[in-house]
């Protein structure tokens, strides 16, 4: 039996009903055009050299010692930023979680985020220059911690406030002093918050590029990718982007695995 394609379409239009799924279409379209398509382009670019399918771009990158160094340096700076954010953010989140007005103060901590981060970073640079502090790795780290610490505090605060007070009481009841209560109960129960915080800080910091340039001319991996694309080296730039993506996915997976068996991570 033959079917008229035109008839089929008109049938479809007739049967069209405004279901809940329909409302997702604009976003699906947006995702396809601005996320999936660029990823495909990057993937194609990475394996395309002189119009032919090859691994030439990978080989070129592997031979480029400077880029590898930058990659290692980026991961190092990302790790140090994350550790600093955790070291500074945890006590803050812990203190605020035990305060009645804690949630209000958390909002104060988030306030700077409402200012565009470029403006903030430029302002920080102006402050450094005014104080005649030489720009370098130290100032870059400061800028990173300053920019990303709210992303550490917020998930930590959420997790810590949601820990039932009775757990701490039960531990104290069983003979634990305050330090032991913290080490044996509060800290393990806040692991999901720590993991969310690490994901929220580490992943953006290893791929950041503006802060490092503005606050010290330190070259990070994000800057390298930026540079490659500016110089028309799309192939190598795409390979580097893929490596970045792989790192992001890998760290995400590792952290999720580490978090297994805990209460569900509150990646808000």
């Amino acid at each position: 039996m033959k079917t008229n394609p035109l008839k089929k379409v008109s049938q479809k239009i007739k049967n069209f009903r405004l279901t809940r799924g329909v409302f997702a279409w604009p976003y699906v379209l947006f995702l396809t055009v601005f996320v999936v398509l660029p990823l495909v382009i990057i993937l194609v670019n990475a394996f395309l050299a002189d119009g032919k399918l090859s691994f030439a771009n990978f080989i070129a990158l592997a031979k480029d010692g400077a880029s590898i160094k930058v990659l290692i340096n980026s991961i190092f700076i990302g790790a140090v930023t994350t550790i600093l954010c955790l070291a500074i953010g945890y006590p803050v989140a812990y203190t605020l979680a035990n305060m009645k007005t804690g949630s209000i103060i958390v909002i104060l901590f988030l306030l700077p985020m409402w200012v565009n981060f470029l403006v903030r970073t430029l302002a920080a640079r102006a402050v450094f220059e005014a104080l005649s502090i030489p720009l370098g790795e130290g100032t870059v780290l400061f800028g990173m911690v300053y920019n990303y610490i709210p992303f550490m505090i917020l998930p930590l605060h959420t997790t810590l406030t949601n820990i039932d007070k009775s757990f701490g009481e039960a531990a104290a009841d069983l003979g634990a002093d305050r330090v032991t209560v913290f080490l044996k109960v509060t800290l393990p129960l806040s692991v999901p918050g720590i993991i969310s915080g690490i994901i929220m800080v580490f992943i953006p910091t290893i791929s950041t590029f503006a802060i490092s340039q503005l606050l010290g001319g330190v070259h990070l991996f994000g800057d390298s990718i930026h540079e490659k694309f500016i110089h028309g080296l799309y192939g190598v730039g795409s390979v580097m982007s893929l490596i970045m993506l792989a790192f992001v996915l890998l760290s995400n997976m590792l952290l999720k695995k580490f978090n297994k068996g805990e209460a569900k991570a509150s990646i808000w």
Partner: protein
Amino acid sequence: MAKIEIKSDKKEKVIELKNVSKYYDDKPAVDNASFSINKGEFVTFLGPSGCGKTTTLRMIAGFEKPTSGKIFMDGKDITDMPPHLRKVNTVFQRYALFPHLNVFNNVAFGLKLKKIPSGQYIVDKNGTKYEKLRKYTKDEIKEKVSKALKMVDFEDYEHRDVNSLSGGQQQRVAIARALVNDPEVLLLDEPLGALDLKMRKDMQIELMEMHKKLGITFVYVTHDQEEALTMSDTIIVMRHGLIQQIASPKVIYDEPANVFVADFIGESNIFSGIMHEDFKVEFLDHVFECVDKGFKKNELIDVVVRPEDIYIIPADNAAAMKHGAVNTCVFKGDHYQITVQVDEFEVVIHETNGVEEGAEIGIFIKPFDIHIMPKARIVNEIETEMIDEQTVNICDGSFECMPTELEAGTPVTVKIPFDKVVVHDDEEDGVIGAEVINSIYKGSYYQCFIRADNYYMFFVDTQDDWLKGDRVGLSVKPEDIQIEARQIEESEDR
């Protein structure tokens, strides 16, 4: 056996509270509680939610510090001792099992922290001999944990994740976790509240058996009067932070200290009555014979009669004290619940035989089943109306109060705390005049009964002793008058 030893010196106090109060933002959660708990006793705090029973337990555990007063354990003042040093362990309301640990590690939590004498000694430079402390070894912990889990009948689940356990199972782990530390006193905060009825009954019996077997003191908190009556040696009934009665279950049931206790424990008929003279009380518009004496002539009192203590007899029987018509008759499994209209009062009766609805019957009450208690009051409460937005009528006097949005004539309930009524020597200084009826010294203040000219009786706490029969003036500061709008209902006499 150790068990028998403990039973023999039963009178030894293990916990004692002296004038303990706990205030939250100036509101008393526990008000001047004093009592002691004997070694090996099963004591239950009983009361409706918000009565201060859990707060009292938490103060014994050390999670809350009393605002005033002292707590003693084994004669030592532990008021300021942090919870981890107290020799008590708690079973929490929602168990509070550590979600990141399995059953074994939950139970072993306390043991792993404990330090015990090792039997080895060290001598320091000054020649002082110390006994070395050591931690439990792994094998000791293992043995103790399995023993505790066996006690609560929950073996072979040691490696289970606590989140995968049912409510009843978590309950058992929580009890094992507390008991494994050999506490002197086990505190249980509504431990059976989350279980279904059948499981509750089973756990009640198991807990009672554990208490008997271990011989340690149990302090139990519940709002379930049946649970309290079943399990306890002693019940402490609380309400609004005040202890109402401390007695054995039988006494609490048979001789409730006041109307609140009677109402809360079991079902009861509560009537307002007048004590005509010793052994003669009037309620239900009838003068009954009773076994109480020592009340003042014509004193207003409350009468409590348990539903099972009222007998239904044929209406034409000469022994019938009152007559009434049966409103309803409902079968309740082991008895019939019958409501009878006696004049304007509704009387609840439990009988083993049903009666026909609408039938005329006679009722009969034995003298010793009539429980008489003085009228209990915790605040002066007057039903009246507003004169205008800033004035309220109290006993035919115009009292200034804080501005309200209630218009003139709005029916309101006025509450004045005992200690906020100001008594003036000169009748003219007060807003209304009144007569001092009685004055009782209560240790640190006088409680006076002062009757206004419309016969409303004010209860007044003052530092001064007022002479019986004196005329005085009464006033109240505007900010001390609490006003609540009142819904007009058909007055419900019981």
